[in-house]
């Protein structure tokens, strides 16, 4: 069997000014083919106006087992949300 093509992660920006969003992945021999394949696989129904492709092994992520220590701190900092502060009704819109 021939050599397996590398895996690419595909990010697409829709039409309405949103940021690029991860939509899935695919195999391709190089970035150019990854882009062309991504267009055929992920934008058959006008899903996007721009595509980014990134080789999967170039992505760095936290180990999921460390999620608790990585993401726990903000849980105690509820004052970061505007809803923490009670504004009396008669102050009006804020």
């Amino acid at each position: 069997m021939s050599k397996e093509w590398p895996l690419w992660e595909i990010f697409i920006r829709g039409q309405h000014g949103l940021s690029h969003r991860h939509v899935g992945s695919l195999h391709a021999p190089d970035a150019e083919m990854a882009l062309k394949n991504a267009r055929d696989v992920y934008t058959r129904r006008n899903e996007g106006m721009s595509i980014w492709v990134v080789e999967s092994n170039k992505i760095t992520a936290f180990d999921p087992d460390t999620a608790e220590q990585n993401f726990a701190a903000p849980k105690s900092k509820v004052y970061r949300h505007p809803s923490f502060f009670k504004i009396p009704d008669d102050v009006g819109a804020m």
Partner: protein
Amino acid sequence: MYAQLVETGAAETSEKDREFQAKIDRGVRIEANDWMPEGYRKTLIRQIGQHAHSEIVGQLPEGNWITRAPSLQRKAILLAKVQDEAGHGLYLYCAAETLGISRDEMTAQLLAGKAKYSSIFNYPTLTWADIGAVGWLVDGAAIMNQVPLQRCSYGPYSRAMIRICKEESFHQRQGFDIMRQLCQGTEDQKAMAQDALNRWWWPSLMMFGPSDKDSVHSEQSMKWGIKQNTNDELRQKFVDQTVPQAEWLGLTVPDPDLAWNEDKGGYDFGEPDWTEFYEVLKGNGPCNRDRLAARNKAWDDGAWYRDGLTAHAEKQQTIAAE
């Protein structure tokens, strides 16, 4: 159902396994790099792999009619549908790959006849009406199964299913539209539609897998949140939805036992021929050998193209490095 008789094994009882089950019970999605029991991983690889292979092999019975579609528009629509099936296969292969199996490994299993795909694609598409029946019944049954899979406990599978479901309803409607046009046509055309329904009805009911009492793997799959409904529940839902559509078309469902049951608010219907089902799964359906031969030929004939693209990519890299 595109995945049938998926083996699950039994759950272990370690501390980690119990924590995992608790996570599932809380409705937390499992992601690619999270710890998961080997049984869960293997079950998903089998199920998603089988599902992906079904999408890919499913292109063959329809591809048969691309060059013979009765009008340019029908041809363009059928091409778009078959292209969607290829896309669905790709989404699913990628979801399975997050579990630690490679795409080429899965392809090799399919080509060697070791991996299963849905029994339904081993039946031939003899007339144009079959393309209508496949869209209406086969895609209809697939949707019935795939809608609940959007809530599957495994994140990458559930996300692939969300994309697929969005695209799938076009498939069912185009099939129904073909049937509608034939049923409103000449006597011969209507007879062709009836013949297609006669041949596709029972194989479509078999898609949901064996009856619950014989479905040995369902319980564990449901506990793990891989499966949300039993085979019989989904089959019942499919019959209840489809029979009125057949009546609307003026067609007769080929089941003498079919009758509305007021008490259960659904139809009573006959048993599919399970001997036939198991024979098809064993490789003895009308088209099993043809399907595998076609996939092997496509893979072998495409080798020079895949190798050429790899060689080009490597050459470009060398040039860029110099």
